[in-house]
């Protein structure tokens, strides 16, 4: 009978097609560059990574997390059982009942997916994704019906005799074709279900396995210098597992919803960018893309292939330069895709190979090369700000407990106020501290984010060589960008171990320890309402959300949190060299952030970064005041403690 062989052969055919598709897809990824991955460990860790880490992210949207567990879990279980029951025809009531249960669970999940799709938020992609809940429901219902006989609910003989039932079975076969086509064929041939296949493998072969299990891995990977080309010019220049990662995207648009550049109307949408990478790795155009475009850029005109230069037709350079590297997208992505890595990889090509860093980019890089600071100031004037600070310089003292990394704020009058405030606090706590003075150089942060890894690496090596000459156990800095470089990115170049046993800290962390140890005493803050802006390079890059808040509460401040704070903090617009490349949008990111601040009713916004201070103070008045936490602390320092400790020390 038709029925007997039709369904199994359909399943078998689709499985074969899926396998072919899978091989084809794998070949796309293999076009990428080699990258060492511990395959077996990854595969073994995959279920845990899915259940724990991925769900940790999905969990932020409770609705979706439950829906996904039901639908996804139901489907995986059902699919295995379908193969056993319907393909291999294993006669087991227990299996059949299990299958029914799995399908039931999947059905419930799919109903919620369906509901979400009735009136989807703008961040979700439409197109084939609108079809998916229907396919899921069809799959669940069809196989439910098909499994009823096996479960002994419908007599098997019925299906053999009745002509009407033959018709029904034909219809069922068609439905099987449609739904299973979506699930299996679509999975490996580029349908929405691709995310399950690629996503699972992406979790297994992730380029930053450190991120799983609660870890953090935010430092950029060093570029190989000296080859025939630098950075990523074509999709095939990505590492193979980066390509795989792009394929894992579910087009959920959470990244888009968080992206400050997108919100400011700059031509960047991280979701579209990842989808364009998918277009690039598979070849074709973006015609079928059904989500929000890059603001003010029409969809359908982009095309690419693994061997074509990305910025010549697939993605415009402005898109890449709009990114502030705030990592909001990466933080939010349930598939743990690494947008920032990809963007900087492509920037590396533009800067190192094309010499095409927009606006002030070229000038800034040239300055960094010629003067070790982005504004081209005389390197010999780096310590002028500290002329009256009576600070020990490493060159003279050779060792100190704490090395204060001053950063390029040394050249900027506004930032100098933060530096002085911090020094005042250090002195009050009688910390044994020294600075590098004129031996310090730019950390290389800006050069690296602008794609000039050659200059970054040169700075890193020279800075490390300087640091290696001195003894200190703690390095502390008021600049989260330098903090990130020193803490997370210098290790790749630190052969001599200059920072090996050194604890690198942000000043808020350090100050908080001083407060906890009672080394510092501060008065109660008497001003109005205060909110706190989490700098990206302190928060998302380094997970420090608590110390700044603890410091504020030590001042008796109850932080009026902004809607977007902590790991969801919205960027000030100052990172990644964005103020330098200055890609026009409809609004300024800093203006939006200031609106967030104003919405809390705060009169003062506390920050922990000189760059955030500059960006937020660049918003036209009237607006809330902007202060670094060190400044607020210094203003409220209880001074008599000083004499005490100085005597003690003397």
């Amino acid at each position, binding site marked *: 009978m038709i029925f007997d062989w039709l369904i199994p052969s359909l399943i078998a055919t689709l499985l074969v097609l899926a396998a072919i598709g899978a091989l084809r897809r794998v070949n796309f990824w293999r076009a990428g560059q080699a990258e060492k991955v511990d395959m077996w460990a990854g595969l073994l860790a995959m279920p845990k990574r899915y259940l724990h880490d991925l769900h940790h992210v999905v969990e932020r949207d409770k609705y979706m997390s439950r829906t996904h567990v039901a639908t996804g879990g139901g489907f995986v279980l059902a699919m295995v059982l379908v193969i056993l029951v319907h393909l291999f025809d294993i006669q087991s009531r227990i299996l059949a009942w299990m299958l029914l249960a799995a399908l039931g669970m999947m059905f419930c999940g799919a109903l919620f997916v369906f509901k979400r799709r009735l009136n989807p938020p703008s961040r979700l992609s439409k197109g084939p994704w609108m079809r998916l809940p229907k396919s899921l429901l069809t799959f669940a219902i069809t196989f439910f019906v098909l499994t009823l006989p096996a479960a002994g609910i419908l007599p098997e003989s019925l299906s053999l005799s009745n002509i009407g039932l033959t018709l029904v079975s034909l219809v069922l076969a068609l439905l099987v074709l449609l739904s299973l086509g979506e699930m299996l064929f679509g999975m490996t041939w580029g349908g929405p279900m691709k995310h399950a296949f690629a996503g699972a493998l992406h979790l297994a072969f992730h380029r930053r396995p450190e991120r799983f299990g609660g870890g953090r891995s935010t430092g950029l990977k060093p570029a190989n*210098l*000296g080859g*025939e*080309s*630098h950075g990523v010019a074509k999709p095939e220049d990505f590492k193979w597992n980066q390509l795989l990662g792009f394929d894992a995207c579910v087009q959920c648009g959470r990244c888009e919803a968080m992206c400050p550049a997108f919100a400011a109307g700059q031509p960047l949408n991280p979701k579209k960018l990842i989808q364009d990478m998918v277009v690039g790795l598979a070849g074709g155009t973006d015609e079928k893309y059904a989500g929000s475009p890059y603001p003010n850029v029409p969809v359908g005109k982009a095309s690419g292939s693994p061997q074509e230069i990305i910025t010549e037709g697939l993605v415009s350079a402005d898109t890449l330069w709009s990114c502030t590297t705030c990592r909001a997208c990466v933080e939010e992505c349930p598939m743990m895709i690494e947008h920032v890595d990809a963007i900087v990889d492509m920037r590396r090509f533009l*800067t*190192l*190979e*094309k*010499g*095409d*860093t927009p606006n002030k*980019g*070229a000038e800034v*890089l*040239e300055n960094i*090369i*010629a*003067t*070790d600071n982005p504004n*081209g*100031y*005389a*390197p010999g004037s780096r310590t002028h700000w500290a002329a009256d600070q009576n600070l020990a310089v490493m060159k003279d003292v050779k060792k100190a407990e704490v090395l204060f990394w001053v950063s390029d704020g040394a050249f900027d009058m506004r930032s100098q106020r933060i530096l002085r405030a911090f020094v005042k606090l250090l002195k009050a706590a009688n910390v044994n501290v020294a600075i590098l003075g004129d031996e310090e150089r730019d950390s290389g942060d800006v050069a690296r984010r602008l794609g*000039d890894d*050659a*200059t970054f690496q040169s700075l890193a090596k020279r800075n490390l060589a300087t640091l290696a000459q001195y003894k200190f156990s703690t390095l502390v800095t008021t600049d989260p960008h330098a903090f990130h470089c020193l803490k997370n990115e210098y290790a790749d170049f630190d052969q001599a171990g200059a920072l090996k046993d050194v604890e690198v800290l942000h000043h808020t962390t350090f100050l908080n320890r001083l407060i906890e140890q009672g080394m510092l005493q501060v008065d109660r803050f008497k001003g109005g309402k205060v909110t706190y802006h989490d700098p990206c390079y302190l928060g998302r890059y380094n997970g420090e959300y608590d110390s700044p808040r603890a410091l504020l509460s030590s001042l008796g401040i109850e932080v009026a949190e902004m809607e977007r704070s902590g790991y969801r903090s919205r960027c000030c617009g100052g990172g990644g060299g964005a103020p330098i490349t200055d890609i026009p949008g409809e609004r300024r990111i800093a203006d939006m952030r200031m609106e967030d601040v104003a919405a809390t009713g705060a009169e003062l916004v506390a920050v922990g970064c000189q760059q955030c201070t500059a960006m937020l103070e660049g918003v036209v008045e009237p607006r809330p005041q902007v202060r670094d936490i060190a400044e607020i602390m210094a203003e409220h320092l209880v001074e008599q403690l000083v004499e005490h400790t100085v005597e003690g020390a003397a």
Partner: protein
Amino acid sequence: MLPKVLALVSIGRHPQSGRERRAEQDGRAVEMGLCLQERQLMHLSVAHAGNADSSVLRQYAGMGLSKLSVLAQQANEDVLSPLIDYVEAQQASMVLMGVRSEMGQSSGMLPYLLAERLGWPLLPRVAEIQSIEEGVAQVLLALPRGQRRLVSVALPFVATLDNAAKAPRQTAFGPGQRADIEVINTTSIADEVAAQWQFTPAKPRPKRMKVVKAKTAADRFKAATAKPVGGGGKVLKNETVEEKAQAIFDFLLEEKVIR
């Protein structure tokens, strides 16, 4: 075959750090040469007389040069003769260079000597080459404050570039590293005259004080009561709008920006 333009580059000096860099005007010479090449008017080659190991040469090459020739020279040797030989060997019909080098004597003589010895005319402070037709170039010279003068001249010629010329394009690390640096050995002659000179770090040049040689009592009084320069400006608050505007206008007249 397109006529050849030769851009001569030197090692610049960053005004703040004193470090070697791409010289501003020489970079512009390369930029102008590249533009002429992109417009298919001329074919560019770039040469440097000096030390072939300087990393700055890679910065010039990073502008998109596949090759850069170096006439190997010691620091205090006379570069003129090797350069002339080179220009002649290259059969160049235009030489572009900076007005003054950022290192060394900076006398600005080299382009003039080169032009004289080649018997070519020299165009000083070029901002732009508008066109080259039938061997005649229309050239814009830069005058102070954005003014321009049009000059027409037949090839071949030597031109020095003003800072008003198009800024040099960004230098890219990759192409710069891969470019071929061709070293040409030259016979060099030491500069004996300059060897007699003393080079010392620049002494600060005192800003000249306005010496008031008052001739009348009134002048002396004025000089004594005049506000010292740079001690904060004048603020007009309570005057009428007419008076305020008149004050600004007089200021502009005094500064000679209104003619």
